[in-house]
């Protein structure tokens, strides 16, 4: 057992000091000392004073230095800092609508999907257990973002946030694809980036709904089950234009690719299949006539098929997770956030 | 800075780390943590599968300390791990499974309130130390003492963010009903933990329904999916109704038991719909603890096979939302019991 730092804890227990903060996520942080901050800033070539943006709704400034302090507290290694800086900059784009998400009653979180060589180098994990604990890069990069959103943005439940339930995805939300086992190009490549490009995609989503299928051996039946997991009466994806992440396990992606389907084929098929008829949607959940009219649905035709994905670019199809018959589906938010993606500099 | 001697780096580099920093365990801090219980530090709680390392009151306290707990949280951590080691909970199976479920702790009673376990706005997410650290203490034990590490003792494909931490209470201030514990026969003054193995919550938003029938249709719809284990095996499920949704039901004269019975009845799919995709297998259906005719396309398969598999509670802040946590296939049965403070 370590002896810790008796001199410091005699004065004030550093852990209790931070755990007592209103913006704490409830977990201990790495105590930020000037020495450690300098160590963290070694992860970037950027000027510590450079302003990255103001975090809504409190609009406190996030500079390279303050972001580094939060990355440090979250438990990041210095080499993770470029991803945190890159992610934060993307999330501040207007179309991502960070302000709305901070305040919303719903429980979504900005999921970061990181593609490219640098994510592999720093150990961002896209294999077994990638949505859960045990992987420092995933855990701490996502947590750094959350601490910034609570401390600099004030997105604290009951304070700046009206979230009814929140989501465990708000503890942290960052993963890579399982590039080794994916039969397809990465999400970034499907958007025109090069395989060597370091790209982040950020999407506002709920925590994953797991979609198990150890029966289907052909894509047709497999995709019916996944499409079913994409639709629900009370999901915002049914009622407004909204993003969605479908993370296929490599085993299920391989079933499709072996049958000759490309990433684009599966993407298209899921968009065609996932949805509900107006008659079904009226029976419960968020259905409203005015909402239907806004998405060009004829509310008086009970047979009308409402697709989950209203616009092609809203479905983010990735391959992640370990080997096994499972796909994870993350539903989106109703408040008008558009996924963002871009290169980040290392 | 040399990483080798930095206390934070020391623990972050452990194989059993969840990826977050821990409170550095010192003898002085451990002594303070142990003040949270009257139990003998050497008392054995049990062994955590699959690695079967021993959990004593002292080792539980060390993990609680590292997780960030206050000493007064320790009884809930001890109570939780105790319950989770009951045979019917099947911790061994959950540690190893390919699926992504976590032992959600629902803590009822005055002590939960006293130590600040949160059941209102944002209860499934960050910002609440008791929720965050009690659940995390359990996870750190499952990783360190149990070896349930993804890719090692655990074959989990995706895991779940609920594995970072999973501990909540009910919103007793705004609930129109008795608590989950009271519905199981405990007293309001009893300190009770219920543990269920579930996925992370599926949010079920409904700002339209003003009467229970339509509202419960929407919630029941979220309790069903072709790829959910609840459709294909006897499995637990947690439905956490937001107080606003619960109040719509209670104002229409429905008791908690009425809503429970209604959801058990209407959540499900016909055999015809299940055959097309997902986990459907004829043999699986024949293994249900209820009578099923898998050859009758019109046969209705309920998501809840046995009434006590549905843990219905009221949580979250005011707003038109309900959270539904689906269960696991591998034969874990929710456990509940009193814990000592």
């Amino acid at each position, binding site marked *: 057992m370590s002896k810790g730092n008796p001199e410091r804890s005699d*004065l004030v227990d*550093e852990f209790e000091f931070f755990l007592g903060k209103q913006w704490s996520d409830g977990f201990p942080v790495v105590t930020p000392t000037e020495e450690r*901050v300098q160590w963290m800033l070694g992860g970037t070539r950027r000027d510590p004073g450079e302003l990255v943006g103001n975090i809504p709704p*409190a609009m*406190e400034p996030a500079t390279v230095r303050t972001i580094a302090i939060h990355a440090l*507290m979250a438990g990041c290694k210095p080499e993770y800092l470029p991803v945190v800086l890159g992610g934060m900059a993307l999330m501040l784009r207007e179309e991502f*609508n960070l*302000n709305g998400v901070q305040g919303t009653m719903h429980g979504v979180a900005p999921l970061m999907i990181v593609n490219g060589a640098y994510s592999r180098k720093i150990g961002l994990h896209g294999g077994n257990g990638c949505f859960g604990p045990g992987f420092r890069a995933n855990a701490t990069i996502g947590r750094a973002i959350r601490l910034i959103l609570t401390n600099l943005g004030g997105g604290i439940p009951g304070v700046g946030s009206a979230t009814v339930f929140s989501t465990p995805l708000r503890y942290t939300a960052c993963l890579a694809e399982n590039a080794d086992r994916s039969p397809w190009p990465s999400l970034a490549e499907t958007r025109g980036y090069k395989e060597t490009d370091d790209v982040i995609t950020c999407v506002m989503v709920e925590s994953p709904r797991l979609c198990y299928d150890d029966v289907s051996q052909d894509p047709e039946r497999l995709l019916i089950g996944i499409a079913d997991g994409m639709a629900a009466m009370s999901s915002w994806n049914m009622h407004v234009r909204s993003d969605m992440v479908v993370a296929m396990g490599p085993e299920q992606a391989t079933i499709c690719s072996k049958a000759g389907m490309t990433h684009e084929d599966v993407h298209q098929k899921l968009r065609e299949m996932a949805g509900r008829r107006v008659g079904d949607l009226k029976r419960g959940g968020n259905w409203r006539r005015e909402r239907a009219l806004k998405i060009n649905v004829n509310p008086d035709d009970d047979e009308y098929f409402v697709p989950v994905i209203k616009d092609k670019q809203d479905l983010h199809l990735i391959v992640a997770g370990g080997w096994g018959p499972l796909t994870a589906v993350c539903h989106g938010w109703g*408040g008008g956030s558009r996924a963002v993606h871009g290169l980040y500099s290392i | 800075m040399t990483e080798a001697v930095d206390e934070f780096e020391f623990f972050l580099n452990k194989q059993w780390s969840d990826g977050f920093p821990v409170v550095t365990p010192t003898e002085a801090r451990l002594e303070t943590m142990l003040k949270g219980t009257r139990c003998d530090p050497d008392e054995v709680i049990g062994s955590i599968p699959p690695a079967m390392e021993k959990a004593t009151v002292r080792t539980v306290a060390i993990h609680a300390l590292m997780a960030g707990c206050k000493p007064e949280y320790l009884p809930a951590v001890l109570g939780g791990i105790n319950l989770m080691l009951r045979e019917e909970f099947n911790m061994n199976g959950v540690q190893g499974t390919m699926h992504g479920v976590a032992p959600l702790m629902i803590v009822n009673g005055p002590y939960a309130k006293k130590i600040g376990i949160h059941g209102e706005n944002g209860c499934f997410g960050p910002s609440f130390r008791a929720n965050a650290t009690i659940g995390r203490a359990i996870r750190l034990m499952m990783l360190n003492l149990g070896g349930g590490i993804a890719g090692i003792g655990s074959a989990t494909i995706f895991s779940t963010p609920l594995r970072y931490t999973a501990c909540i209470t009910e919103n007793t201030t705004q609930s129109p009903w008795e608590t989950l514990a009271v519905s199981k026969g405990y007293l309001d003054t009893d300190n009770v933990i219920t543990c269920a193995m579930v996925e992370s919550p599926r949010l079920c938003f409904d700002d339209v329904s003003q009467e229970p029938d339509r509202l419960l249709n929407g919630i029941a719809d979220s309790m069903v999916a072709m790829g959910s284990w609840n459709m294909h095996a006897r499995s637990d499920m947690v439905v956490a109704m937001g107080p606003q949704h619960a109040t719509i039901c209670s104002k229409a004269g429905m008791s908690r038991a009425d809503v429970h019975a209604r959801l058990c009845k209407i959540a499900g799919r016909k055999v015809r719909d299940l055959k097309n995709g997902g986990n459907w297998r004829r043999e699986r259906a024949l293994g249900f603890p209820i009578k099923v005719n898998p050859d009758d396309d019109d046969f209705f398969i309920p998501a809840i096979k046995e009434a006590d598999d549905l843990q219905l509670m009221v949580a979250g802040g005011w707003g038109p939302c309900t959270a539904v946590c689906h269960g696991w296939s591998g034969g874990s049965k929710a456990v509940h019991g009193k814990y000592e403070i």
Partner: protein
Amino acid sequence: MANDLGFIDPTAGGGRAMVALAPRPMDLAGKVVGLLDNTKEQGTLILETIGKVLQEKYGVAKVILRAKEHYSKPATDSLIDEMSKEVQVAIAAVGG
């Protein structure tokens, strides 16, 4: 940011300016009231009802109704400027 704690306190809010509340009128007679709809369903209905009651019962001279671009986004500066020139009292509504 160094201090006698021996470590950095990164808590935000140090430079935050306080915003003073506008003075509250003692009565509404003869005043122009602005109603700001957040665009959620039924928000307009609630505001229109409030506007009517304010005119009938409290002698409000005129009511103007404006809407935000989207409920999840803040009102634009130009909308706030425009309203502040026209009205003495404003009410914002959350529909749903």
